[in-house]
């Protein structure tokens, strides 16, 4: 393992020290291990809280700020935060209007956020939850823990965050977040595994000519292993899987996220985006908005995830609303 670290046990904490140094507009509480908007709590505003294992940067702490999250709770690498952290975040951002948890659908995240919601409830803080489960590589059945939360999480955080900034109440913000999730589907391909600092070695091995199809964002193996194919075929394969699960009709608008998993150069992401844009254009779908870059990552995994969200005028208006966070900023 070669990484820019001092000690595997100190990675999350020391990265938060760096985040605090780079972004004085955020309040980084190293004791509670939470990242909070400096102006929280804001009277009349719902508190938007997300969190999850570290290693997906900029998700979630990179999306704390105006128009997006009020607080992020980073856990250990690939390990959900603990209930105490999430409760501390709720106390830091609740101004009496309640909080909304944005939770990626993983067993540990769901349990810890659920426990935190009960603790917050005991403290008189009303909690609504948006569960993100956009990864269509996993079938939602009794045979699995359900679909995973991946790329669509940042779309939910952006769009729900905009409504919260406008003064939407907790129930409305949560309902909108759920609507964005339901309109979104994602699919990911990995070219390499990733290495967690604590494990010190890759989670799996992959041959020079192989790819993992249907991976998540935790370095786990995917649904199947295949021979590497040209980018055009990969774009077609991922888009077909996405549209089969969540169709977008000709004439409809979409928000497209071409996301890197951490170690894929932008030149490849743009190449892939070009393929996807061509395919969607052929299908008559209008890409109303897009993002190309590393937003929901899996440490040093080389790979991509594609997210397509069927959009309507309200979603697009909220997407365009001002946002000022470390990793996403426009309109301000």
């Amino acid at each position, binding site marked *: 393992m070669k990484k820019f670290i001092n000690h595997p046990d100190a990675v999350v904490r020391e990265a938060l020290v760096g985040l605090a140094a780079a972004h004085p507009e955020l309040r980084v509480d190293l004791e509670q291990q939470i990242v909070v908007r400096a102006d929280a709590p804001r009277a009349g505003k719902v508190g938007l809280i997300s969190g999850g*294992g570290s290693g997906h940067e900029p998700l979630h702490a990179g999306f704390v700020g105006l128009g997006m999250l009020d607080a992020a709770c980073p*856990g*250990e*690498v*690939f*390990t*959900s*935060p*603990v*209930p*105490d952290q999430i409760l501390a975040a709720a106390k830091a951002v609740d101004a009496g209007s309640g909080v909304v948890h944005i939770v990626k659908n*993983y*067993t*540990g995240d769901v*349990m*810890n956020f659920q*426990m935190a919601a009960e603790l917050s409830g005991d403290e008189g803080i009303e909690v609504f939850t948006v569960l993100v489960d956009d990864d269509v*590589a*996993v079938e939602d059945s*009794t*045979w*699995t*823990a359900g679909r*995973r939360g991946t790329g669509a999480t940042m779309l939910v955080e952006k769009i729900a965050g905009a409504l919260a900034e406008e003064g939407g109440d907790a129930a409305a913000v949560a309902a909108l977040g759920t609507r964005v999730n339901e309109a979104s589907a994602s699919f990911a391909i990995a070219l390499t595994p990733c290495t*967690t600092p*604590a*494990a010190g*070695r890759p*989670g*799996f091995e992959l041959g020079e000519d192989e790819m993992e199809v249907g991976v*998540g964002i*935790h*370095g*786990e*193996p*995917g*649904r*199947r292993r295949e021979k590497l194919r040209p980018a055009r075929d990969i774009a077609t394969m991922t888009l077909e899987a996405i549209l089969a699960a969540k169709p977008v009709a000709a004439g409809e608008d979409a928000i497209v996220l071409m996301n890197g998993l951490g170690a894929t150069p932008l030149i490849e992401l743009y190449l892939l985006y070009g393929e996807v844009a061509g395919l969607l254009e052929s299908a008559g779908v209008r890409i109303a908005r897009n993002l190309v870059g590393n937003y929901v990552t899996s440490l040093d995994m080389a790979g991509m995830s594609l997210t397509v969200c069927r959009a309507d005028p309200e979603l697009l208006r909220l997407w365009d609303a001002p946002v000022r966070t470390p990793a996403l900023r426009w309109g301000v």
Partner: protein
Amino acid sequence: MDVALAKAWLDTAADAIAAQADQLTTLDAAIGDSDHGVNMNRGFGAVRTALAGAAPDGVGAVFTLAGSTLVSKVGGASGPLYGSALRALGKALPDGPEVDAAAFGAGLRAGLEALRKLGGAAPGDKTIVDAYLPAVDAYDAALRQHGGDGDGGLAAATRAAAAAAAEGMRATVPLQARKGRASYLGERSIGHQDPGATSTWLIFQALADAAAAP
């Protein structure tokens, strides 16, 4: 089961998990996200620290403290699951510095029920339950057979529980995971031993070892 044995169990479990942390992480790398050993080691290390700094006067209080510590320190799925199990065990025990083997067995089952309620796993889903359930069944059967009187009864029952947990753990190899992160692999989870069932066996083996110690 008294306060000293309760602490000795958790201490022995912490030692075993520390020694096997790398192995647990290797198992998790095959079908999960390579952190089970790291998380369990961090959690049981924290339990050891918490117990050293506190002087619980009842057996139940030892387990309640240990469970709360796991919930607060571990994260992921294993923290809430093992933490809730230990908390439920602690709360199910009658007050006092010592409980009999039957009450302890009922507590172990209460822990299993709490864990199953939280995680929703059924037997055969390739989880902790596949080692934990046979362990408590074997514990109860051994008590019925040999009686629970004295330390001998507890030692025999915990030995039976550890053996059943080991068997249950090995029986997870051919299963397809239906809960947790391994379930995302579908059929590719077949052929790998479940890391959660493995840590459960380590914990029951630690219980048997602590109960057998003079």
